[in-house]
């Protein structure tokens, strides 16, 4: 089993190559390294699926043709427009509110208030039950484990010459669980 640091380093290296991997523009050596890692790392494999799927969807998006004078018309229209007032984003609103609060606060009390809040947070962290002992597992990972069950069942079915692996695959891919949800959801 690889140690955690090595695994993380491999994961980071793979993430940086995923886009090129999906574009099939990696060298043979890099392709081999990425595929080797994806075969061993379930989380990265899932990320790779999603990346390739997203790229596929973008590639399959319809492209629209414009008329020859489209750009000329666009510039003419832009020139005819007057100045537009700056749009108030959520960030701007919050910043304005903070400025207003800061103006109203007594700044001499601020250090005392900060120290008090920091002490409270530290105490809460130290004396609360150790949730860190329970590993957090992503839903994606557990779903993947469940889907693997179905895929392995299909493979075992296919190894039986007197069984029907096609039917098994269709059942797995249309997998409706007893709760009515796709197998793999918890």
């Amino acid at each position: 089993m690889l140690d955690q640091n090595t695994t993380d380093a491999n994961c980071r290296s793979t993430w940086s190559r995923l886009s090129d991997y999906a574009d099939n523009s990696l060298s043979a050596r890099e392709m081999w390294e990425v595929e080797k890692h994806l075969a061993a790392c379930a989380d990265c494999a899932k990320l790779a699926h999603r990346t390739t799927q997203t790229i596929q969807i973008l590639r399959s998006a319809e492209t629209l043709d414009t008329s020859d004078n489209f750009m000329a018309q666009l510039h003419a229209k832009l020139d005819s427009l007057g100045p537009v007032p700056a749009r108030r984003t959520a960030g701007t609103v919050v910043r304005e509110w903070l400025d207003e609060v800061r103006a109203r606060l007594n700044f001499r009390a601020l250090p005392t208030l900060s120290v008090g809040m920091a002490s409270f947070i530290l105490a809460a962290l130290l004396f609360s039950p150790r949730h860190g002992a329970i590993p957090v597992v992503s839903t994606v990972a557990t779903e993947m484990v469940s889907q693997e069950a179905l895929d392995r069942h299909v493979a075992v079915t296919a190894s039986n010459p007197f069984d029907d692996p096609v039917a098994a695959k269709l059942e797995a891919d249309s997998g409706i669980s007893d709760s009515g949800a796709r197998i793999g959801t918890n």
Partner: protein
Amino acid sequence: MPDANAQTSRGGRCCPPLSLEGRIVCALRLVFVLSALLAAFFGTPASGQFQPAPEGRKPQPIRRTAGGGPNAARVRQARARQLLRMMLKPKQQYIGVQETHLYEGTGLISEQEIEGDTNGSIKVLFRSPANVRGDMMIITPGIFRSYHSSARLLEVAPWPTEYNDESNRMFANLLNGTVTASVTGNEIVADRQADIVELKVPNGAAGAGRVLRRLWIDDETGILLKIQKLNALGHTTSTTTMETITVNPANAINPNEFKPQFPGATITPLFPAPQYRTMEDAQGHLPFTPIEPAPQALPANFHLDGVWGFGEDRAHPYLHSVLMRFTDGVASFSLYERLVPPAKQTPIEAPLRRTFGRNQQTWRIQTQQGVMSVQYIGHLLPEQTAAIYQSLR
């Protein structure tokens, strides 16, 4: 002495007394008559019984020989074994289109293109339904590949392993009587003459005579033309039928057809760890103790015949899992178990609220180690599934 006279009279017609030549002729006639009587009585099936029928012949049950005696049954069983062996390595390459019907759940219909060679390799390309369009399944004697086109994922499973050489095991089951196979009729499928082979529960076992599978096998080439799966009530759960087929196509199938490349596909080994011989062997490799159904809760003739552990390379114990496969020699079901992370543990469902009719179910079972997620995949009857569920609880 009228009786003696009568005998003499009959003998006089058949065998002239004192003539050596006449006696030889008489003896030959007697041997001929006796042979004919014996043949009719023991009913050896005519060799023409298995000859291909003319095109357009209607499906018909196989002609039973006189009395359907034990000899006839043995011949049908021997012929079935011969066909099944031929099916593993057909005599001709073929290309066709087949259709699969699922009769449980959604009543799904799927169409696929299929190619097969004389080594028993098969490539299936799914045309429909939409969620599997473009998917490919390649089954070769050494390896199974399943390509999911939408996810660009290629799953690979090499076999046989030490313990799961399925074809050898199936024939062992046929020979040791765990399962019986017999030719029960013939039918035209995709314009080809097929013999119908039934795999049944043998006499003396629980549910004796129950049909587990029906296979329509091309009697000339051994190509599987149709397969029907049945559940314990004898209801069909799925059929896959060849709709059109070209045997020995003009352009021979290239062996590379069964080793396609999928550039950019993510390759996932489905069975990264070896199969374990027993549950005890598997437990040493898992961070939890799997729960097994009680032997008395298993349907008749079913037993555990495969255990695989997964996730040794994964850091979280909740990503470890175990697959148990149970079989009666032909049909099988799987239980796939893993611990549920504490944060995702939901209340355990009341058993009475469950229905057990679906072929895929996920159960939550409370154990001393925590809540266990158990996936059931199979075609047992609802009451059989319920018995397993109760046994696990």
